[in-house]
């Protein structure tokens, strides 16, 4: 009973804090900081999608960037063609989700093992990178949108008021939307994991053979989780695309590697950890970039190796452990 009440209080605090932050932050911070944080939130949603797929579905997806990039491209192409971003929202979610479903069918119904799955998803991402890089000529266009090869689509339209293509939203209101979308996604994931589907998913992660012997279809559950994760990554791509731009680098090894590092650093098997890990590491990397003498790849590589060797469970579980341990010490070894 008590644990449940505490969890409810935690949810409410997170919700209210998030909403207050969404409206409060732009009032105090500079415009530049607001836009930068919007960007970080888009990438945090990206990290959350992998946290769900990998941390709870047990699917080692090294190609999450494929869905992120596809979402971004789908958004840009739809927004340019419709002249209005309202219908670009469902497009940016459905296109990557459909792609994830198709790819997932081959992988899960082929019963590829963990590691093979990782390599196949990684390869798909790299091939998409090459494919979009080769679309330089004017003949590569979808409707009014030129794909633009290496340069991508430089002027992606920002979000607008629904059904009014010319009323662009201000960066402040886009920031509010980004916070709300991230919160909604987080609560959506928490809800999903409490449903019957989510519990089966976790049981499959723990022991696929046992789940299968108990009569659950491992393939369908994994495919569904993978598709949902793909849609979420697409949504993250949308938020990123409308804020920055769209180019093939979204499919590059750097994005794929970064999102995995965020999840590992934040804590695999948690939802909040990867979000915080993502935002924190982005600011660390930006800070390292201003120093100028250290290569970002080198720093990321060292962080990844160090975490795998020394903190394989990530920072968030470590933090939780320290806090509960501390509380137990204060209470005098009680049972909590």
């Amino acid at each position, binding site marked *: 009973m008590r644990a449940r009440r505490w969890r409810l209080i935690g949810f409410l605090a997170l919700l209210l804090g998030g909403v207050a932050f969404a409206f409060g932050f732009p009032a105090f911070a500079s415009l530049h900081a607001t836009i930068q944080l919007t960007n970080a939130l888009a990438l945090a949603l990206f990290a959350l999608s992998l946290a769900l797929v990998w941390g709870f579905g047990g699917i080692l997806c090294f190609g999450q960037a494929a869905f992120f990039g596809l979402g971004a491209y789908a958004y840009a192409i739809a927004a340019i063609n419709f002249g209005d971003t309202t219908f670009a929202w469902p497009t940016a979610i459905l296109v990557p989700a459909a792609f994830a479903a198709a790819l997932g069918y081959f992988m899960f119904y082929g019963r590829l093992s*963990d*590691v093979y799955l990782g*390599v196949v998803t990684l*390869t798909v991402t790299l091939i998409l990178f090459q494919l979009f890089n080769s679309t330089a000529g004017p003949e590569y266009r979808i409707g009014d949108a030129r794909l633009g090869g290496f340069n991508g689509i430089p002027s992606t339209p920002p979000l607008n008021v629904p059904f009014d293509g010319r009323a662009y939203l201000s960066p402040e209101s886009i920031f509010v939307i980004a916070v709300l979308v991230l919160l909604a996604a987080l609560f959506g994931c928490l809800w999903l994991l409490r449903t019957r589907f989510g519990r089966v998913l976790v049981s499959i992660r723990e022991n696929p053979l046992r789940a299968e012997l108990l009569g659950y279809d491992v393939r369908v559950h994994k495919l569904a989780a993978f598709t949902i994760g793909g849609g979420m990554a697409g949504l993250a791509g949308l938020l990123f695309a409308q804020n920055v731009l769209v180019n093939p680098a979204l499919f590059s090894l750097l994005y794929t590697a970064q999102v995995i590092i965020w999840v590992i650093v934040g804590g695999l098997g948690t939802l909040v950890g990867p979000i915080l890990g993502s935002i924190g590491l982005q600011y660390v990397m930006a800070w390292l970039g201003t120093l100028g003498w250290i290569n970002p790849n080198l720093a*990321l590589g060292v*962080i990844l190796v160090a975490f795998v060797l020394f903190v394989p469970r990530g920072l968030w579980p470590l933090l939780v452990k320290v806090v509960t341990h501390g509380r137990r010490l204060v209470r005098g070894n009680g049972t909590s």
Partner: protein
Amino acid sequence: MDLAAILILQAVSTVATLVIISIGLAVIFGMMRVINLAHGEFIMLGGYTVFVATNAGINMWVAMLVLAPLVVGVIGIAVERLVIRHLYGRMIDTLLASWGLSLFFIGSITTIFGNTTTSQIASPFGAVRIGAYSISGYDIFLVFMAMTIVAGLFVLMRFTKFGLLTRGTMQNADMAAALGVNPGRIYMVTFGLGAALSGLAGGLLAPLSAVLPTMGAAFIAKAFITVISGGTAILFGTASASALLGTVNTVATYLTTPVLGEVALLLAAIILLRLLPRGITGRFLGRDL
């Protein structure tokens, strides 16, 4: 007729290139079940070895065939001792750690040499003419090299004491240890051998592709898909998967564009894995050569 001859030659050279870029990965994965995501960077380091050595005035052939595998093999052994050794049996962790190493190598080489290289290594041999068409003589050399590497590895694994000990350790490390073999040392040498082969690949490909810190990414997708499609038998699997995927790639490239050729290669591999999840040789040969 000339066109057919050229197309066949081209297919054979694509196949040979696939064998060359994936054999180092196949040795490490097939023997040790370690997925080495730093494979592309081992190739890159091989390329840089040739680049630095030729700039220092060393004969190109020596740099390519001797120095590149030697240098990268030593780096591979160092990597195994420092990082990979601690992670055996934790497949996903090794994979992540090797990814970290890959980023680390890209970062370090960029810091040392910058984003670009100034001089291009000239491709030796001229063109070979067949009727109205021509093919690079170096491509034919690569075919020869691919056959030499595969034959050499076969002899090493099948007929030498080292090969026997290695295969024994891979089949049952505990039993090998009980018989007095040190599995740790075998793993170290095998990893070094795989790295050396990747270095050799980098050296051989240096005249064909620009030597850049990020060049590994261009090979890694193809190398992985080849090794995985090949399945558990290192030599036969890699060779047969290369033959299949290389042919698909060449035909699709001829009919459309090089990029779509690569897409066709990938699609063929994914469909193949849907039908044979353990690769071409997984079902029939098991963990043989």
